[in-house]
């Protein structure tokens, strides 16, 4: 699989992590918010207690379930502690982002039925939610990651029945990515770092995508069965 700009993406995550000096402020903001507590619960799982994502199509769906939980949790926080200067339009669309991703989470759980992994525990501290630039910058990382994840996972499904359904979600993720990108930097929806000279959007293997997602997730995974 292509690994465009993985290094760049990782360094971007490191940059936002350096906002950790404001972690106290984040915790203050997040502290009083009911409903997001579950995402902040400390995870005590040890390395050998990693969650196994499963094999074959189950593993792929659980991988997407992880990505969607990450975004849904991120937007739950972003909506609960909105940034300063939020416009009415932004308030509407930010709620949509949360609601769409929540729907994806619950839909994937229903599809997975008995094979679904437990709810994961997030690390939401890379973003400062009250700061517009910080929140949207992190949203861009997560949306671009989601788009590349869907692009990269699709060819590995062995049951063709998943293809129509998963592609219905994939394009909505791309619409999300456009929005958060244009919101921070108008006309950057198709940045050259994401789309190559052939006009092909970034694609990541599930293992590569999971590695990029990991700084936002406390839960550790055994994704060794996922395509590398």
């Amino acid at each position, binding site marked *: *699989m*292509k690994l465009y700009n993985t290094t760049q993406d990782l360094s971007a995550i490191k940059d936002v992590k350096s906002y950790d000096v404001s972690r106290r402020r984040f915790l203050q903001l997040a502290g009083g918010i009911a*409903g997001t507590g579950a995402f902040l619960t400390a995870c005590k799982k040890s390395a050998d207690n990693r969650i196994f994502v499963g094999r074959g199509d189950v593993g792929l769906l659980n991988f997407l379930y992880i990505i969607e939980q990450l975004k849904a949790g991120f937007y*739950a926080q972003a*909506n609960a502690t909105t940034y300063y200067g939020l416009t009415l*339009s932004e308030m*509407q*669309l930010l*709620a*949509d982002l*949360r*609601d*769409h*991703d*929540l*729907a*994806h989470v*619950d*839909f994937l759980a*229903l*599809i997975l039925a008995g094979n679904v992994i437990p709810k994961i525990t997030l690390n939401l501290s890379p973003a400062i939610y009250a700061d517009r630039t910080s929140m949207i910058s992190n949203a861009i990382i997560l949306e671009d990651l989601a*788009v590349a994840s*869907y*692009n*990269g996972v*699709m*060819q590995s*499904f*062995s*049951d*063709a029945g998943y*293809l*129509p*359904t998963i*592609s*219905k*979600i*994939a*394009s*909505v*993720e*791309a*619409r*999300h990515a*456009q*929005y958060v990108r*244009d919101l921070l930097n*108008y*006309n950057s*929806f*198709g940045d050259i770092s994401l*789309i*190559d*000279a*052939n*006009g*092909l*959007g*970034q*694609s990541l293997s599930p293992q590569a995508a999971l590695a990029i997602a990991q700084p936002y997730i406390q839960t550790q995974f055994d994704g060794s069965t996922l395509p590398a």
Partner: protein
Amino acid sequence: MNISNIINEIAKTDPEVYERVSGRRNLLKSFGSKVAVSALPLVLGSLFKKAYGQTTASASLIASMNYALQIEYFTYNFYHTGNNTGGLVSAADIAGLQAIENHDLGHINFLKNLITTMGGTPYTPKNYIGNPFIAAGAYDFTKSGTFTNVFTSYAIYLDLGQAFKDLAVRAYKGIIGSNGAGSSFIGTAMQIHSVEARHAAHVRYVRRNSGAIDNPKPWVSENISFQSAPLNQFIPFYINENNILQGTNIDITTLPGANGSTISHTAATEAFDEPLDMTTVQGLLSPFILI
């Protein structure tokens, strides 16, 4: 004759070719230049059968790629014409709309080369004059005079631009869902599909910011199209976008929403885009294509 040269040529078209054949690189090395020329077709055939899912692509896969190419020519010519019509596009928006044109040009080049590599004949528009992919005589974006102001009214131009891009997203979804599991074109089609969705969302966002009466979101709400004549002719472009039964007939309007509620009907329909089949898409575009 050298296998490496052949692979290198393919790599110019498809940079992923090495990854597709990754397990076989050592095989190639071990063959080196010792493979008898007479055995080459067999070796290569087997290699690409593994890499691309077929020896030479099946007629239906080539047809899918050519259908994609047909859509790319269509949208490329639409945006190319708009971007080159003086005074049409606002200065603030030109960079974004030029990016759309350039991506679509990339798609044309990529698909043309891929189809050729796979043993097919790339589609060319009627009245194609080969002046890099401009086919001014191939399209009638006014739809026989219905939209005479398509390249003079920026609002109308964006309306059509949105409808065409939303339709392209639906078309790629149809391709992705209809070519079976495991075909490597699925990955490529997904990559193009994601770019088409970024385009569609961007044009919707430009319209939202410009005060369009339907105040569109970057995502498709329900099956909402343009309401006033003649733009209501685009209603069929959005048919079934309000579908609420997904996967194994799961009613997505019953899914939990934020803060203990149930998701709104509109948000549920926005969370899932819908495919359209090739016959329907081509039928919708045909009034804009000269024959």
